[in-house]
C-alpha cells in the first residue's frame, strides 16, 4: 500500500473512532463549566457577535436568504435580549454549586459526643496521598451513615441493578448487595466482600479504624466496616453487648471547607495505597486507571499522541493513583484484553454483560498472563494470530476451566499443536468442571511432549549434515573481509555449543575416542 494512502487510512480510522467516541461526560463538564464560570458580558457579546457574523456569511454563501434575512432583521434585538437574560441570571445568582452527591440538598450531619468524648478536630491533620486534609473526629449512629453508592468497588453491581430495575438501589438494597443477599447474575460467591468475617471481628473488637464520612454523612471510606455493623445490628446471632459495639461508630468527618481534591485524595489514598484491609479489586482499580487514560487521551490535540507523549500521560496517571508507571501500562493492557473478553462473551456468546464483567473481574489476573509474550511463539502472539484460538481460551477462562494462571503460560505450546488444541476444544465442551480441567492439563502435556519430540526428531541427520557442510567450508569463509564470511558472533555461538558437546562426550571420547585417527 502506498504510504500516503496508508496515512489517509490511519486518519480515517482515527476520525471513525473520534466520531463514535462517547463524549457525554465531556458535554456535562462543559455545561457545568459554563454555569460555574460564565463568560463576562463583554466576552459573551464578542462571541455572540462573531457567531452571528459567521452564520450570516455562510448562509449567504449557501444561498440561504431566509437565514440572512432573519439575522439581519433581529440581530440587535437578539443581542440585547440575550444580554438581558444573562444579566438577570447573574443578578439572581447561580451561587457556587455545592457538593451534592444525590441531586438533593446537602444536609450537614453533625457528629455527637459519646461516652463523654466530644467531637474534636484531629491534630495534626491526617495526610492522604500527599495532601493534608482537615477532619473532625466524633461519633455517629451507624444507622445515620449512608453507604456510598459512588463506591467504585460496587460499580458493576450498581450498573447491573440499574439495568434490571431502571433506578439506583435504595439504602436497604445497597446493603443487600454488599451483604451478598441480593441475587445478581454472575456472582457465585455468597459473601463476595467478606462481610461475615469482618462482622465477627467487629463484634469482638469494635471498629478499630474510623470510617471517613463526608459532611452530609456519605461514606468515603469504610463501606465494608459499616455494612458489617449493619449485619451485626440486624442479626440475632450476635449478643446485646456485641450489637452495642456496632451501634455507635467513631468516624472522621471532612469539614465544610473540604474541596473535591480533598475527597479525591482520601479515596485514592485509602483504596490505591497499600493498607491492612480489603483493597478495591484490581479490576476496579485498573478500570479507573484505564478510564483516566482514555479521558486524558481524548483531551490530546492529536488523535494518536506520540509514544513519548503517551509515556508522559502514563506517568501523570501513575502520580495521580500512587502507582508505578509500569503498573499503569500493565493495567491499561489488561483492561484492553478484559474488554475484548467481555465483548466476545456478550456479542458472540450472548452472555449477560454484567455476568461477563463479574467473570472478567474474577479472572482479571489471567489477563496479565495472557498479555505476555507478544513476540512470535509467545502467548499473546498466539492469541492474536488465531481468533478461534483466542475465543477458545476466552471460553475456557469464562467457564473456570484453567486450574490456575500458570496454565496460561503453556498455551503458547498448545497453540502450535493441532492435536492439543483439539483436546482443549473437548475441555470446552465438557460439562464436568473437574474432567474439563484434566483435559486442559492433558492438552498442555501433549503439547509439551510433542515439542520435546519435535526437538529430538532428526537430531543425528541434522548434526551429520551440518558437520559435513562445515568441514567442507573453504578457509576464506573465516576471513572477516570476505563477502559472506562467517561472523565472529556466529563463531562464538558455535564455540559455546561445542563446549556443550565436550560435556556430552566425556574425557575418554575427546580426541577421537573411536581411534579412527581424527588427529590426522
Amino acid at each position, binding site marked *: 500500500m502506498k504510504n500516503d494512502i496508508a496515512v489517509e487510512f490511519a*486518519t*480515517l480510522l482515527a476520525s471513525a473512532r473520534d466520531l463514535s467516541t462517547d463524549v457525554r461526560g465531556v458535554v456535562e463538564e462543559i455545561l457545568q463549566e459554563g454555569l460555574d464560570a460564565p463568560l463576562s458580558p463583554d466576552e459573551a457579546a464578542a462571541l455572540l457577535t462573531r457567531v452571528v457574523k459567521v452564520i450570516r456569511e455562510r448562509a449567504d454563501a449557501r444561498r440561504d436568504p431566509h437565514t440572512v434575512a432573519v439575522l439581519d432583521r*433581529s440581530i440587535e434585538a437578539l443581542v440585547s435580549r440575550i444580554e438581558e437574560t444573562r444579566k438577570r441570571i447573574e443578578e439572581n445568582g447561580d451561587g457556587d454549586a455545592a457538593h451534592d452527591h444525590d441531586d438533593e440538598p446537602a444536609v450537614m450531619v453533625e457528629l455527637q459526643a459519646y461516652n463523654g468524648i466530644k467531637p474534636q478536630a484531629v491534630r495534626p491533620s491526617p495526610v492522604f496521598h500527599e495532601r493534608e486534609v482537615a477532619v473532625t473526629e466524633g461519633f455517629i449512629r451507624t444507622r445515620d451513615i449512608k453507604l456510598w453508592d459512588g463506591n467504585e468497588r460496587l460499580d458493576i453491581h450498581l450498573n447491573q441493578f440499574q439495568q434490571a430495575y431502571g433506578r439506583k438501589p435504595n439504602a436497604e438494597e445497597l446493603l443487600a448487595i454488599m451483604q451478598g443477599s441480593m441475587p445478581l447474575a454472575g456472582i457465585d460467591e455468597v459473601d463476595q466482600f467478606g462481610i461475615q468475617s469482618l462482622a465477627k471481628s467487629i463484634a469482638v473488637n469494635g471498629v478499630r479504624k474510623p470510617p471517613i464520612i463526608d459532611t452530609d454523612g456519605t461514606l468515603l471510606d469504610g463501606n465494608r466496616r459499616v455494612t458489617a455493623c449493619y449485619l451485626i445490628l440486624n442479626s440475632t446471632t450476635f449478643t446485646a453487648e456485641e450489637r452495642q459495639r456496632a451501634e455507635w461508630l467513631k468516624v472522621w468527618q471532612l469539614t465544610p471547607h473540604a474541596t473535591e481534591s480533598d475527597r479525591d485524595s482520601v479515596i485514592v489514598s485509602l483504596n490505591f495505597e497499600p493498607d491492612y484491609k480489603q483493597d478495591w479489586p484490581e479490576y476496579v482499580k485498573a478500570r479507573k486507571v484505564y478510564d483516566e487514560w482514555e479521558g486524558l487521551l481524548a483531551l490530546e490535540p492529536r488523535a494518536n499522541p506520540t509514544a513519548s507523549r503517551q509515556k508522559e500521560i502514563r506517568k501523570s496517571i501513575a502520580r495521580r493513583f500512587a502507582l508505578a508507571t509500569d503498573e499503569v501500562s500493565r493495567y491499561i493492557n489488561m483492561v484492553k484484553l478484559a474488554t475484548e473478553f467481555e465483548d466476545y462473551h456478550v456479542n458472540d456468546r450472548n452472555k449477560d454483560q454484567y455476568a461477563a464483567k463479574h467473570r472478567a473481574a474474577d479472572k482479571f489476573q489471567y489477563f496479565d498472563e495472557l498479555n505476555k509474550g507478544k513476540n512470535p511463539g509467545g502467548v499473546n502472539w498466539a492469541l492474536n494470530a488465531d481468533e478461534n484460538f483466542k475465543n477458545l481460551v476466552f471460553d475456557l477462562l469464562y467457564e473456570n476451566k484453567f486450574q490456575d494462571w500458570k496454565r496460561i503460560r503453556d498455551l503458547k505450546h498448545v497453540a502450535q499443536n493441532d492435536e492439543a488444541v483439539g483436546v482443549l476444544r473437548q475441555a470446552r465442551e465438557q460439562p464436568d468442571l473437574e474432567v474439563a480441567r484434566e483435559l486442559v492439563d492433558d492438552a498442555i502435556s501433549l503439547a509439551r511432549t510433542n515439542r520435546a519430540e519435535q526437538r529430538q526428531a532428526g537430531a543425528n541427520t541434522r548434526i551429520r549434515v551440518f558437520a559435513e557442510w562445515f568441514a567442507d567450508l573453504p578457509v576464506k569463509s573465516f576471513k572477516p573481509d570476505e563477502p559472506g564470511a562467517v561472523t565472529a558472533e556466529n563463531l562464538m555461538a558455535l564455540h559455546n555449543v561445542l563446549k556443550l558437546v565436550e560435556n556430552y562426550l566425556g574425557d575418554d571420547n575427546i580426541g577421537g575416542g573411536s581411534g579412527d585417527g581424527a588427529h590426522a
Partner: protein
Amino acid sequence: MAALASSTNTPDARALLQKAGEAAAKRDPAGMLEALFESRFTDGLSRRLQKQWGNRIPRTELDDCVALAIDAAYDAATRGKGARDLGAWLWKVANNTASDRWTNEYRNRDAYFGGFPEVPAHPHEDATERKASDELAEYRRREALRLAREMLPRIGTGQVVNVMEIVIDAAEQGVPDLPASTVAEALGITEAAARTLVSRGLSRLRREAERAGVQFPEEISETDPTESAEDRS
C-alpha cells in the same frame, strides 16, 4: 425567550440545548442562539477550548471555532440532519476545527516570543497549487474509504460488519458525532452492544489494516518488566 428559574443547573441547560436544536430544525437561527447562550453551553465550550488550545491559538480564532461549529450544526439541522446530541456535536466540531487550525496553520509557524506566531514558516500555496493539493487529498480520502470497505468482510460477519458500515458511511459524510444510540436504533440492538461492536470493529479493522501494511503510530509497547525471558522468546 424562556424565563429561567432563579438559577440554572445542568438539567435546565440540557433542556435549553434541546430547545436550541429544535429551533435550528425550524430554521430559526435567532431562537437557536438564544437558547444556546442562555444554556451557557457556549460559555463552557469557549472556556474549554481556551483551556485546551489557548496557549497555541489566539482567542479570536477559538471564537471562530465555536462560531463555525454552531453554523455547521444549524446548517445540518436545516437539512434534516440535526444532531441527536447537540452538545456532543458542537464539542467535537469545535475541537476538530481547532485541531485542524493548529495542524494546518499554526504548528508550522516560526516561534514568536511574546505572542502568537504571525508569519507562516512556509508560504501559502497559490490557487492552482491549492486546487491540485485538494484534488490529491480527495483522491487519497476516496482510496482510504474504498480500502476500508474492502476490508470489512475480513473483520467478521454479522452485526460487527453492519455497525462498521454505518461508522464508515458517517466518516465519509463528515458526520462529527455518531452516538451509540443512533447505531443501536438503526440496527435494532442495545446501546451497550452498539458501543462494544463499534470498539471491536475498529480494533479489527485496524488489525486487518496492519496486516495489509498500514503503519500506525506506535501505541503502548513498553516491555513488561515482569515478563520472563521465556515469555519474550
